[in-house]
């Protein structure tokens, strides 16, 4: 397989504000051209700051940034071939849709005819034909969002940045718009960095996800890798609300460890070089079966709480390893609160993670 071109590369980049606020701490990653990579993490972990450094709105305090193998660490935003869709959209309120979209072309002195044709083309792409004379204040939230996207797209940038682009939209629209963004990205083979704090959104649109915690990278990988094999409790918890259980390692054979949850039924999983006392078992809520007998069970518990959510049921189960959060598809025959249940585990969605 040929190595793909690298669109953006961070080399040990740190950003320190006001002498002591470390917003980004020694971060390295690279992003392949034509892929959509998501920065995912709780608010305040430095995602926006990374994005702004790619755009050239902030300069790194330490380390280097490359765009298509050119060192741009000290190149100001104006001179970078990078466009950004802001969380607030930042549409220019005194310009109409067409003027907003044409702004970047005008700033780089593109001839008038070309400006017009490219503006028209990109508005057609996002489905806003005929809206070109409207002011941003005369558009709905979703339409404003499209204007922001087309304003960035029209410059055909090397890298396109999205900072939580869906956070101002209502829940219904979010799913639709994120699919549109993904479609356009695939269609035009754009290199995109996409920031969000919503794990579902990240899993849905990304080629790769970079999970961040406290200014540094916790783990990166494809959505599948992150969901199935999180490295540590933070990633396991942040993506998919895993149950984290204390367990004992009984023995180690090669890459596999044999563990127990307290009774005599054993479980064998890759140990990834982790050691006892610094380890937990991460179990996805939907990877837990509730059984009414102790055959194949790893644990016993009692139902503490039950809620009906239409598509599934959610249980809180008290066990001697703590409270478990369970999603169960079987809505027709629910366990009642207070009843005893036995816990079984699925083949996937169960992994060892470090503390």
């Amino acid at each position, binding site marked *: 397989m040929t190595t793909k071109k690298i669109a953006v590369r961070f080399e040990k980049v740190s950003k320190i504000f006001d002498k002591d606020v470390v917003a980004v701490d020694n971060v390295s990653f690279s992003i392949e051209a034509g892929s959509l990579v998501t920065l995912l993490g709780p608010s305040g972990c430095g995602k926006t700051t990374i994005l702004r450094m790619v755009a050239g709105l902030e300069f790194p305090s330490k380390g280097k940034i490359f765009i298509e193998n050119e060192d741009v660490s*000290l190149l*100001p*935003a104006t001179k970078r071939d990078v466009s950004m869709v802001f969380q607030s959209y*930042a549409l*220019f*309120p005194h310009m109409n849709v067409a003027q907003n979209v044409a702004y970047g072309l005008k700033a780089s002195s593109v001839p008038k005819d070309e400006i017009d044709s490219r503006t028209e083309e990109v508005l057609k792409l996002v489905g806003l034909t005929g809206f070109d004379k409207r002011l941003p204040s005369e558009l709905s939230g979703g339409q404003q969002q499209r204007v922001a996207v087309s304003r960035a797209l029209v410059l055909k940038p090397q890298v396109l940045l999205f900072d939580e682009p869906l956070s101002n939209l209502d829940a219904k629209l979010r799913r639709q718009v994120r699919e549109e963004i993904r479609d356009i990205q695939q269609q035009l083979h754009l290199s995109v960095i996409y920031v969000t704090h919503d794990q579902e959104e990240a899993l849905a649109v990304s080629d790769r996800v970079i999970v961040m915690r406290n200014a540094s990278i916790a783990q990166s990988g494809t959505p599948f890798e992150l969901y199935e094999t999180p490295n540590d409790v933070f990633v396991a918890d942040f993506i998919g609300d895993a149950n984290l259980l204390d367990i004992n390692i009984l023995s180690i054979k090669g890459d596999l460890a044999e563990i127990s949850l307290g009774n005599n039924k054993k479980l064998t999983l890759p140990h990834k070089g982790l050691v006892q006392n610094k380890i937990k078992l991460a179990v996805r809520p939907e990877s837990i079966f509730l059984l009414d007998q102790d055959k194949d069970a790893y644990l016993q518990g009692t139902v503490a709480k039950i809620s009906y959510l239409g598509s599934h049921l959610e249980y809180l189960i008290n066990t001697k390893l703590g409270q478990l959060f369970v999603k169960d598809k079987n809505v027709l025959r629910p366990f009642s609160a207070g009843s005893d249940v036995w816990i079984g585990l699925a083949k996937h969605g169960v992994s060892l993670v470090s503390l």
Partner: protein
Amino acid sequence: MNRVVLRWMLLGLVGYLLLPWYVLEDGFWGFSWLFSGGFIFDGGYAPAWAQVLFFEKSWLAPLPLFLLLPLAGYKRSSSDPIFSSSLLIAGVGGLGCLVIQGLSIGIDGWEFSFLNDLFGPLSIRQFGMGYGAVAVALPFLFFLTQGIAARGAIRGDVFVVGSIGLIMALIVTFIFFPLSHILVSALENEGGIFSLWSFFDRFASQGIWGLKCLYGGGRCGVAWNSLLLALLVGVSTTFLGFLFALVATRSGFKRVRLLKSLAVLPIITPPFVISLSLILLFGLSGTVTLFISDLLGITPSRWLYGLPGIWLAQVLAYTPIAFLVMIGVVEGVSPSLEEAAMTLRAGKWKTFIDISFPLMRPGLANAFLIGFIESMADFGNPMVLGGNYDVLSTEIFFSIVGSQNDQGRAATLAIVLLFFTLSAFYLQRRWLGKKSYVTVTGKGDSGVHPPLPTAIKPIIYSITLFWLLFTLVVYFMILFGSFVETWGLDNSLTFKHYVTAFSAGLDQRGIYFDGSAWNSFFTTISIATIAAPLTAAIGLLTAYLLVRQKFRGLAIFEFGTMLSFAIPGTVIGISYILAFNVPPIELTATGSILVLCFIFRNMPVGVRAGVAAMSQLDKNLDEASLTLGGNSWYSFRNIILPLLRPAIVAALVYSFVRAITAISAVIFLVSSEYDMATSYIIGRVENNDYGLAIAYSTVLIIFMLLAVLALQFIVGKRNLGRRLRR
């Protein structure tokens, strides 16, 4: 090396080779040199190179070297160290050369005696810098900033670094440089020799700090007089402003907007007008005085002329300002806090004492300090009503214009005055700089303020109502007085004063203006019209830098720009004549000095308007523009300026209006050719020509009222009081 550098270089070369180097005798707009043919061979008109060759000004010889030095970076990229170094050296060297020669060689040869000792006497003299010098100085400044930007400062942004450099250069030249002259003058003795002793001698004089009035006989020093007055005025205006604010917010009073719009009065009133009106009421032949003496048989006295009169005038003038400050504070106390206290079974009175009042305390301090500074700095009212009660601002004026002409004394007094106002300014900033615990929670705080405790309601109502009526009477007197023949003696109505001041007509030669006021009126309008856009431009640019850019020294930068709030006009006035009477910058008796004075005195108005408006602009807007490939200058023009239009109009109108009402600095700077309306009126007052003075003031007030109304019409009903919330 880029085209912009070349263009600046070209300007510098034009300045060096073609333009007259020194300031022209016939003024800034004099162009006779252009037509005098051999201007090169005339020492007054010659450009720099000819000055070097024919007039022995050898110190101008090195300048072209620095002008051409950036050529060393020709065809190099801006990240090349040679490019940035050549610019830095050219900028620092060129500016250094200009400043050093300008400061050390003046009209009488060497300016400093040690240079005389070092190099022997110098017989060649030089005058102030002119077109040529300015055209050479600007490129040097640009080289310097471009060099700094090329070194990576502020993301290498040439526009931003250049703007910072320009504003700093202007502040240093037109605020710090003149102020430093006050220090120098204060430290020199009569012979112009540096002497600490003569400073202490003057500083410690009885005239300034004497306390004779306390233990019988004689008068107290002016410093004590000013201090006492300012304290009284600060306390009184704060108290009244507070009461008005309470009435406006906590009494179910519906006309808050009307009350607020009254606060526009002090902005459009020349400062001494209140005094004039008080004279009509309480002067020797004032209406009230005559009425009371008829009624009670008390002989009229001159009680108005002195502390009581100035105090009354200033309290009338500045209470609206205190009201505007206080209403923000009183409204700012979150009603839910008060409601919470009430639900905890605290009575109205207890809630007010325990909750509301403590939360308003910082605002009270702020209002007090503003009143204090305004009173200290006021010149017009003490000038008209001072009598034997001398205060610092008028004393400075009299020690320099009168027969005394004692620069040292004027400078010393200015330092004392500056000390007071800067201390107050410092206290105010410290107080406001600390985290304020006044809570403006904005949304979701839908409670209502509890009404005033019933016990104090009648007292507050009667005081505020009385003061409101009094203020209205005072303003009415101004209007009425302008139509009265001679106040108190001949009360027949007449248009005489308006005719004398503003008569105009039409004859075969066209329109003529033969009223005595036209000259100063036109000068005032044209100077204010020139100054206003410049003030707004510099103010808004400064606001942009303060709000949108981060750089080392930002705090100092902000301090420098806000400083002129705290510098009394009198101090600015005296510093300008001390500094700009002699080379290297000769401006006295020109229109330019008035324009410059207005720009730098009113700059904080523009800065405030800009900061307030710009903080409401989402920062992402200009960042979006940057990421779309517009550089900072392009973004400033296409995004920020259009969105700031209301702030621009406001800054324009206010600097225009303030330029018209200003008196304290202006009175030092006017000349027979450039007389201003306010100083003309003061002159009339000194000649006891009250009718004309009042008529002229009325015209000014109406004129400015129209300007402000036009502004309101254009901008909508934006907060007119913004400039007052410092």
